[in-house]
């Protein structure tokens, strides 16, 4: 174990994981001073893996949780082709109506138009929820940051299992989930081509965003 050509991947693994005698470990350490590039690369990989394994726990879902999820998927599979009329209460698809746009409001006396442009508030509504969007231009680029809030109006909208998906003009989608207050956020939106979908167990709400202007 004192020459490079017999320092194998197995030797390095045993060395890193402390399974070598003190003498063998010292021999490996000495030999590594003249190690080949391949051996150094193996050592680096094993070192990284060892460190990660010390810090990481992986687990699996308990049987009950898997069964719950399978039941939800089964419900999705059973109902996906049925029309909304045939599956009342399950995954209603709807388009939210814009009920308030701060840009459209008359300017209070004495307020400059540039002040009003800093923050734009939009409110969308369906029977079950109001969705408030506060959109602000970013100082570092031409994009916009969005802070939203889902305000349930009915008990059948469950915030804890809902999600919000932003689809951008580029086709990229970003997902967020609301906190206990219903708040969510997205950063660096482009000025156009954005749409939001709010999803829960029982409904999918499309929220079409207007052109955003700085």
């Amino acid at each position, binding site marked *: 174990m004192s020459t490079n050509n017999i320092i194998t991947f197995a030797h390095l693994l045993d060395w890193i994981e402390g399974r070598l005698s003190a003498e063998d470990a010292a021999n490996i350490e000495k030999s590594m001073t003249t190690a080949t590039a391949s051996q150094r690369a193996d050592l680096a990989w094993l070192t990284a893996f060892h460190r990660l394994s010390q810090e990481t726990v992986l687990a699996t879902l308990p049987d009950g949780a898997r069964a719950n999820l399978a039941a939800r998927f089964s419900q999705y599979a059973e109902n996906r082709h049925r029309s909304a009329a045939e599956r009342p209460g399950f995954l209603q698809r709807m388009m939210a109506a814009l009920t308030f746009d701060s840009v459209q409001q008359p300017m209070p006396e004495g307020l400059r138009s540039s002040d009003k442009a800093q923050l734009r508030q939009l409110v969308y509504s369906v029977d079950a929820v109001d969705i408030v969007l506060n959109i602000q231009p970013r100082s570092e680029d031409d994009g916009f940051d969005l802070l939203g809030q889902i305000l349930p109006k009915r008990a059948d909208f469950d915030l804890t299992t809902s999600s919000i998906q932003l*689809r951008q003009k580029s086709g990229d989608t970003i997902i967020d989930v609301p906190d206990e207050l219903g708040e969510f956020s997205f950063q660096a939106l482009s000025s156009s081509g954005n749409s939001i979908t709010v999803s829960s167990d029982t409904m999918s709400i499309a929220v079409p965003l207007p052109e955003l202007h700085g």
Partner: protein
Amino acid sequence: MGNSSHFPSDEQILLRCRQGDMSAWHQLVDKYESLIISIPLNYGLSREDAVDIAQIAFTALIQNLETLDDKSNLGGWLATVARRHTWRMVKRRQRELPNEFNSKSAHTLLRDRTNLIERWELIEWLNSGLMLVSERCRALLTALYFEAEDVSYAEIAARLGIAEGSIGPTRTRCLQRMREILDR
């Protein structure tokens, strides 16, 4: 060591899930459950909280099956939902149980955003390697390195139906294989 147990691609899984294929759903859960549960576990949350967060993430995916892009990275999508819930849960636990919830990893990583992102990426890298080795290698490496409690060689040998003396050489071969896969 057995043939490599490749999972179908995310695109294939997504397509079949949209067709209501339950076996595709099980494959999706098999492929990503460890990754998704590891996120809250490694931030000091309890196993119960971690299972709750994982269920929320997979449930959100079901809700969005029809609207996801065909080429979506399902693991990344699920991990994003899990991370956001984990972040909020950790902060909630710190408020509710300031004396009891004192996770060192949570404190350290919540403070340092750069390490946080790097850590998540490393766990995703690790999970991708485990998903691409054979089922036997995956079981062996998980038992040796990634269970919450140490598992004896005797128990591992019994679980996998192998001789205790073969664990060392098999471990080496599995790690070499994982390295080859991840380095491609």
